[in-house]
């Protein structure tokens, strides 16, 4: 064991003397720290903005004057997607989704004003977060620093010397792995501090932060093994460097884009335009509440009359127009939900396609895990939209019920006067509260990606043992 440690120590000593390497390490640490800081600031600012808008909208809703409840159905309300605390670590899809959702009767709107449509194409270069630094830049720095750990010793002849002096190839490799792992730990340190700060501020669950830290540690360890392995297998430093750079490019830059392209083509999504028309068509097919001869609504009327045991709408103890509103909203919402679910199923099928590419490029598995744990993945977004829709439905139906109970049928049918009810009713409507995905469920959905990452670790480790061990064994003989 002490041999292993001595080899690592020697490597560290050499590293400290390489000014370029130290500069790179320093720069990346600074970048990492500033990424953590700015991403946190950004998150705080965005979260504060959205909370302020939400409070304003809630207050405005409560402050509406006495009105007919159906006016409030059209007035509607807005909900704003709150940000998960860990978005300061990995912003995930946040910039690519809308965060302002207008909720009104009869319609299901899209969430709007996402950054992606409010920024120049500069956004497409990526967003500076600790996650981006660790996903893309840290492996590259490991390549720069470590491509020569074995190949360099081979080129200078010291490798043969060491191996003939009784250092086992396994010990040698372990020493080098330890040396580079030390560097990786240094690279991970700013992110670890950021995660610690996030969980100490009691905003992020410590377990989630720990899971993220473990995932990124595994990711860097994976690259440590890749770098040492390639450096051991290829004869020259130059070849090792070029090979590693090519690998980095293919795995981290090229494959993710190809995967996204493949997923888009494999499962095309219908446009909102089309969905809106389909919903309108299905709705017409179901019935027209304004048409007195419509079979569906004639049936509904009969059923209501029978239920209350009266023969005329005027004799109902409740306002029939309110009941009609409730029934109409139920029908449209069912359609909206069906189409929205279908769209999300397709999107999730696309994402599964992407995940399958994780078997080819581990960065996709890491990203899936990171986004999921940070609550910035498609599923979290869907949760927001689903909860928003549920809130919309409850609110609209509660307003419709107010119309049914508080306003008389005859009064409601008189075109010359707008019946109104007291504004205190608006205040009685509960506010929207977003419930983030429970931690257990989050971790469970991140588990497959973690499995892929572990499989990569095991596979690379096995490859390292086999190929590199054999090659070094040959040198020693």
């Amino acid at each position, binding site marked *: 064991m002490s041999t292993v440690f001595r080899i690592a120590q020697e490597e560290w000593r050499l590293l400290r003397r390489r000014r370029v390497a130290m500069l790179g390490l320093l720069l990346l640490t600074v970048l990492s720290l500033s990424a953590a800081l*700015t991403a946190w600031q950004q998150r705080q600012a965005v979260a504060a903005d959205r909370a302020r808008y939400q409070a304003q909208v809630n207050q405005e809703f409560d402050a509406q004057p006495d009105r007919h409840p159906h006016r409030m159905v059209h007035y509607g309300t807005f909900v704003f997607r709150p940000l998960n605390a860990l978005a300061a670590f990995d912003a995930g899809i946040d910039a*690519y989704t809308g965060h302002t959702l207008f909720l009104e009767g009869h319609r299901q*709107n899209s969430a709007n004003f996402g950054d992606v449509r409010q920024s120049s194409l500069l956004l497409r270069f990526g967003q500076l977060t600790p996650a981006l630094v660790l996903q893309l830049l840290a492996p590259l720095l490991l390549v720069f620093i470590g491509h020569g750990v074995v190949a360099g010793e081979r080129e200078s002849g010291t490798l043969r010397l060491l191996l003939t002096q009784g250092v086992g190839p396994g010990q040698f490799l372990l020493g080098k792995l330890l040396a580079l792992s030390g560097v990786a730990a240094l690279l991970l340190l700013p992110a670890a501090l950021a995660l610690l700060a996030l969980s100490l501020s009691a905003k992020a669950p410590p377990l989630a932060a720990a899971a993220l830290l473990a995932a990124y540690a595994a990711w860097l360890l994976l690259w440590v093994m890749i770098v040492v392995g390639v450096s051991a297998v290829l004869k020259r430093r130059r070849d090792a460097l070029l090979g590693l*750079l090519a690998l980095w490019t293919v795995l981290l830059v090229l494959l993710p884009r190809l995967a996204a392209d493949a997923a888009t083509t494999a499962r095309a999504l219908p446009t909102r335009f089309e969905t809106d028309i389909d919903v309108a068509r299905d709705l017409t097919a179901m019935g027209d509440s304004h048409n007195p001869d419509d079979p569906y609504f004639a049936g509904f009327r009969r059923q209501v009359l029978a239920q209350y045991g009266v023969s005329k709408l005027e004799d109902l103890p409740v306002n029939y127009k309110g009941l009609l509103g409730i029934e109409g909203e139920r029908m449209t919402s069912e359609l909206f939900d069906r189409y929205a679910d279908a769209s999300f199923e397709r*999107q999730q099928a696309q994402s599964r396609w992407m995940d399958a590419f994780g078997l080819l490029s581990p960065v996709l598995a890491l990203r899936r895990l990171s986004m999921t744990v940070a609550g910035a993945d498609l599923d979290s977004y869907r949760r927001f939209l689903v909860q928003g829709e549920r809130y919309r439905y409850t609110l609209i139906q509660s307003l419709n019920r107010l119309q049914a109970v508080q306003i008389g049928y005859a009064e409601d049918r008189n075109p010359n006067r707008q019946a109104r009810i007291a504004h205190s009713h608006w205040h009685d409507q509960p506010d929207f509260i977003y419930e983030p995905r429970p931690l257990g469920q989050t971790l469970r959905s991140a588990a497959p990606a973690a499995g892929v990452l572990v499989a990569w670790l095991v596979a690379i480790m096995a490859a390292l043992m086999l190929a590199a061990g054999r090659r070094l064994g040959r040198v020693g003989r």
Partner: protein
Amino acid sequence: MSWLVHELRLIARSRLCVAALLILGLLATVALVSGAREVSRQRETLTHLAPLHESDVAAVKQKRSKDGDAGYAAYYTFYDTFDPPSAAAFVALGLRDVAPLALRIRALGLQAQLYEGESFNPELALTGRFDFAFVLIYLAPLFIIALLHDLVSGERQSGRLRLLMAMPGAATRLWVRRAGLRLGLVLACLCMPLGLAMGVMGSGGLALAGALGVVLAYVAFWGGLCLLIAACRWSSTTQATALMSGWVLLTLVLPTLANLAITKRIPVSQGVELMLKQRQNVHAAWDEPREATMQRFFRSHPEWQGTAALPVEFHWKWYYAFQQLGDESVAAEVAAYRTGLLARQRWTERLGWLLPGVAAQALLHRLADTDLPAQLAYQRRIEAFHGDIRAFYYPYVFNERTFGTEDFARRPKYVAAERPPQLAWPQLLPLAGWALGVLGLGAWALRRSRED
């Protein structure tokens, strides 16, 4: 010309060179094909939407022409607007994966309809598309680095450098020719598929010339940078490290830092605010005296002043008047929102003066008409068309004319914009300047490296 044959033979013998060039050509081709497929999918979607929309309008027409009330017709009839991809859009898909391809609007308040989004998978948008712009901006520099970083050090490491240096002028000539040939081959790998694809897709001469110009300048910039580093007396691994760090800095770190700064300095929260304010103003109309609303409306639209007074019961002209007043009440916010968005774009363009990758991105997407200005142009067009819709219905609503079946046929039709490709000279010139400057500097450094 025998040197050319000789150099070509050298390249053919180097597996790295041949593989790099073949892969680059292949990636460019795949990106172009993939982009073209996406664009044709968008066109197909549009042709598929048109009859769907017509049948939707036909259903409204059937239901609404009986009573002859223009107010109902205007309320229920949707109008389709669409933003077909330009003939060069396949080169750089830009914002087209997140912005609506087509938007349905009606005669109600426009500001509540204009910002409606498209349904798309944000996880895929986050990754980005594999288009030619990506291959050029991100991947091509890596290939150039692989081909040129050891131009000098490779000879040194193989021991031929001393021999070359012994012959006066031979070394410089060799570097220039060799680098020139390799860059030429890289250009060929990018430009041949690009030219062919743009020809087939009918992108037009200006777009083709512009795109080729951007490719030429960007490749020249990276070639120059490689020569500059190659001329340093470093080992080939140090040179590769330096160049790769430069790539990371220029295409990853600096643009993301700049984006952060721009987002922070130029907030565009006016979008959300105008939406909130417009809704507030529109719905307040139900609680204020209707005559007061009409008087406010007549102030900005005196042409309807002389029409009949409002009856006791509901009347559509009051309804459409307050809808329009709602839009007008947020005109200042709308202008501020657009100014903010354009300011973000302008600062990105200015950043292009410093970062060639950002300049190339802005130039290509302007040529392809898939950037933020293109989105804003589409919004402005929708706005103008919405004016036409209002102008079409108002005479019926305000003069209480019957709106019959034949009037449905007279409704305005959206005509998609014919936007000719734009080459943004103010950005091409700095890019070309960078390319020439760095290339010249590289050649100068190579010549100097011979002297000592």
